[in-house]
């Protein structure tokens, strides 16, 4: 507080000004604008009419939205069940003081997450192809009973997306787990070991409680990230604007994007977006409350 006498009251605003100008024009204002639009119906780019909660009412009975919600929930569940254990497993493998080449392996596992989604989509569209693709060919090579013409992209849309996302994300979350594991006090593990705790017991009763805060953050990141799945299906099924065969790739955000940019109904698109925001905020609040209850 004594510092306030040494500098002018305008100084912090001078430093904030560039950020705030951009933030105000391209994040804050669009957020306010989209909230207004959620209660309007847009006919083309110019004409809008206030329709109150009509968008929200329509949303409840929109079969496409519910298809999208179903797909998104399936993807999110698979992401939680696959990405988190794989990421934690890789981190546990790497978290050994005597391991040689830890930085090399960390680099290898992390490398897919710096590949842009447009490039991942191109790569996986080739890799998931029927006979020539790497995935069917490898599976057929390992298990001769595997059908080399397994129709990943045509019939198994969600497994294709889940697989691609697992490749991208496992190493990304692994890095967070590894950082957390390295902060687990060695004395605690030693003490448990002296008390006769086995490897599994030490993991369950010492390591897991210690990395719980990071596990909670990663759960939040995986769920909110998966719920916003868009780029990957949009690019992989670009010929159908991201819907995929029989709308099997349609996610909530893809539907939002299609409604806003393809059909031009910005009002309805905003209503979808704000409903999604409420769901995500609700999840974050519930998860935080549960985490607090656990800790106390």
């Amino acid at each position, binding site marked *: 507080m004594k*510092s306030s006498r*040494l*500098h002018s009251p305008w100084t912090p*605003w001078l*430093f*904030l000004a*560039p*950020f705030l100008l*951009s933030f105000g024009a*391209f*994040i804050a*204002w669009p*957020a306010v*604008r989209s909230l207004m*639009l959620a209660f309007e119906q847009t006919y083309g780019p110019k004409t809008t009419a206030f329709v109150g909660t009509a968008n929200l009412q329509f949303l409840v009975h929109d079969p496409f939205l519910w298809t999208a919600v179903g797909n998104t929930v399936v993807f999110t569940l698979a992401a939680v069940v696959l990405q988190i254990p794989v990421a934690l497993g*890789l981190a546990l*493998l*790497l978290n050994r*003081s*005597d*391991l040689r080449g830890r*930085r090399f*392996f*960390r680099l*290898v*596992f992390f*490398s*897919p997450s*710096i590949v*842009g*989604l*447009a*490039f991942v*989509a*191109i*790569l996986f*569209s*080739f890799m998931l192809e029927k006979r*020539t693709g*790497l995935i069917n060919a*490898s599976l057929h090579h390992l298990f001769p009973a595997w059908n080399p013409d397994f129709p990943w992209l045509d019939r198994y849309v969600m497994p294709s997306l889940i697989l691609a996302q697992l*490749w991208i994300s496992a190493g990304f979350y692994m890095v*967070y787990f590894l*950082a*957390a594991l*390295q902060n687990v006090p*060695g004395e605690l593990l*030693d003490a448990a*070991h002296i008390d006769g705790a086995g*490897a599994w017991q030490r993991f369950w009763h010492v390591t897991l409680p210690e990395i719980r805060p990071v596990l909670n*953050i990663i759960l939040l990141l995986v769920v909110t990230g998966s719920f*916003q799945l868009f*780029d990957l299906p*949009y*690019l992989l099924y670009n010929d159908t604007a991201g819907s995929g065969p029989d709308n099997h790739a349609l996610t909530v955000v893809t539907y939002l994007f299609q409604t806003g940019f393809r059909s031009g109904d*910005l009002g309805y*698109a*905003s209503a979808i977006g704000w409903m999604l925001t409420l769901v*995500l*905020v609700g999840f974050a609040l519930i998860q935080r409350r549960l985490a607090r209850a656990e800790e106390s």
Partner: protein
Amino acid sequence: MSTPDHRPLLRPSTLVIYVLLAGFGLITLLPFLWMICAAMKTQQDFYTSQFLPPGNGLFGVAWDHLSLSQFVRLFRELPVPRAMLNSVFLASVGSLLATFFCAAGGYALAKFKFPGRELLTTLILGTVVLPGALLLSPRFETLYHLHLVDHYLGIFLPAVAPAFGLYLFRQAMVNSVPNDILESARIDGCGEVRIFFTIVLPLIRPMISAYLIIAFIALWNDFITPQIILQSPELQPLPVAIFELKGLYAADYNLIMAGTLVSIAPVMFLFLLLQREFISGLTSGAVKG
């Protein structure tokens, strides 16, 4: 710390760990290897071999079937050099601006007390919950009114104020810029702008390099924003350009794989150079230490 006979957590045997790591590592890297081979093979070999084409050369590989002709084609016949320059320009200018804006903003929020600071911080950080797609159309509308559609400023201006970046720099300022130094500099009559550039920025250098590369890679990889904001083909960066190439030359697997490879290679190289900074920057928000 640990006694010689001490066995740490989950240690069946060292060999099993290495075998598992090597197996998972191979699975992770196979797509890259497959892509590299595909980029150098002929169309014919793409259909008949998964990695290198079999033949009579060393190790039973038809080395003479491999060539860099698709890379030559990308750079001689197709607008890929231009797209690459566009990407370099967008990602480097954008990441520099975003880093500077976030550093300055984070400094103000962390090191000054002023009315409304808590509210402003909460509002800015609260926007990270908004789905990016929700803001796309209203943002496009604003850019349209400002005549910035199909202009690089239409990408730069929205990209320079990421809430996540502000959060990282605010944390870095709290952790590594001591108040006493700022106070004594002020008592010595040092100007505020000079304090920021000569004292504050050097103290948070690790976060600057970390955020520069985080922002660079994010901008390099962004597909949706340039696809929406830029309309002229000659302005498009690599993700859009290569994706369109895939639409035009769908059957030329080797060409598309070569294009993908040259688009990934620069950020991979950067990442190899700066992986420690990159990862510590990413995890600094979530994990202390």
